[in-house]
């Protein structure tokens, strides 16, 4: 069973994403911000990360940049969640290392399908 890190400071969304992924057969590690996410990534075996763009302490982009610069974590598949959909922000997110974007609010089946795709793409890339 693959483990997904879910980092979102919005409790409602965090619980919603956790429930969707749990029902989809994933183990979930929920955290409230990027700093907690970074800590979890170093302590636990995480296979995929679902990150909110805007979070206190460390936002999703900064966490993505740290992951991509890290020797062993750099290949972690990252799905970014955002309420904003500005082209410049999304381009910046991809350039910093995000693999995919999903705009809130999202369809639960779409979220699950996107996470499964990231898991599959990650396996093929190895």
């Amino acid at each position: 069973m693959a483990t997904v890190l879910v980092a979102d400071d919005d409790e409602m969304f965090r619980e919603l994403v956790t429930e969707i992924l749990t029902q989809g057969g994933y183990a979930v590690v929920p955290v409230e911000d990027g700093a907690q996410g970074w800590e979890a990534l170093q302590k636990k075996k995480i296979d995929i990360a679902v990150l909110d763009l805007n979070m206190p302490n460390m936002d999703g982009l900064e966490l993505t940049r740290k992951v991509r610069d890290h020797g062993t974590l750099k290949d972690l598949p990252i799905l970014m969640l955002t309420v904003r959909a500005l082209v410049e922000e999304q381009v910046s997110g991809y350039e910093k290392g995000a693999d995919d974007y999903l705009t809130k609010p999202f369809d639960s089946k779409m979220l699950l399908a996107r996470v499964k795709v990231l898991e599959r793409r990650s396996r093929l890339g190895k």
Partner: protein
Amino acid sequence: MSQLTFWILGADTVRLRRWETALSREGWQVSPQTRYETLKAEVARERFGIVLLDWNVLKAQVPEGIKRLKAASMKVSIILTSDSNLDPEKVIDALEAGCDDHFYHDLDDRLLTAKLKAHLRRMLPSLASALDILKSPGGEVKMDRSRQEAWVKGTRTRWVPVSGLTPTEFQFLALFLEQPGKALDRGFILEMVSKGKAIDIRPGTVDKHIESLRRKLGRFGSMIQSIYGVGYAFREN
């Protein structure tokens, strides 16, 4: 350049041409297609690349079409494209059939190339990195397009960062490194740098950008040579 191919299967020839231009600008090998079977034959032959698959070509047959492409080559990444009114359930069906991503036809060209680079990075990290790194033939100047950083050769073969480049100057340098030795006229430079982007550059200001770029490149600035009556060319001394 890599042998990786970007296939674009679509029914709208205007869009095909637009995307072909956007992808070619990145230095990628692009193959526009209007027939699925021709595309599948090319995928089976070349085996490695990214397919942009327009939902309008196969419609209800999209999931089957994706499976057949994946059967032809597992080393191909498939991205479904569609009009914005496509039922999300159809997108989910395609993703579950083996499709790797989806976007709508009105996607901004900058976002299109950023997305494709993300796919390249996942498919083959070293190749994606190689596609982002541009180096002059003599190895004196190099740049990383995704990180927006440039360097020149310093003493004892160490690379020295070029500081203070504006986004426009960065694009000028990329254009020169993509086509070293070739004389590029001002109109072409202007078109390539401003196409599809919110950059306001007038013909008269090309010279000012070049002058500023030369200054920031230090002793390597003289490699951007003025070609009388044409424009500029990047030539190593």
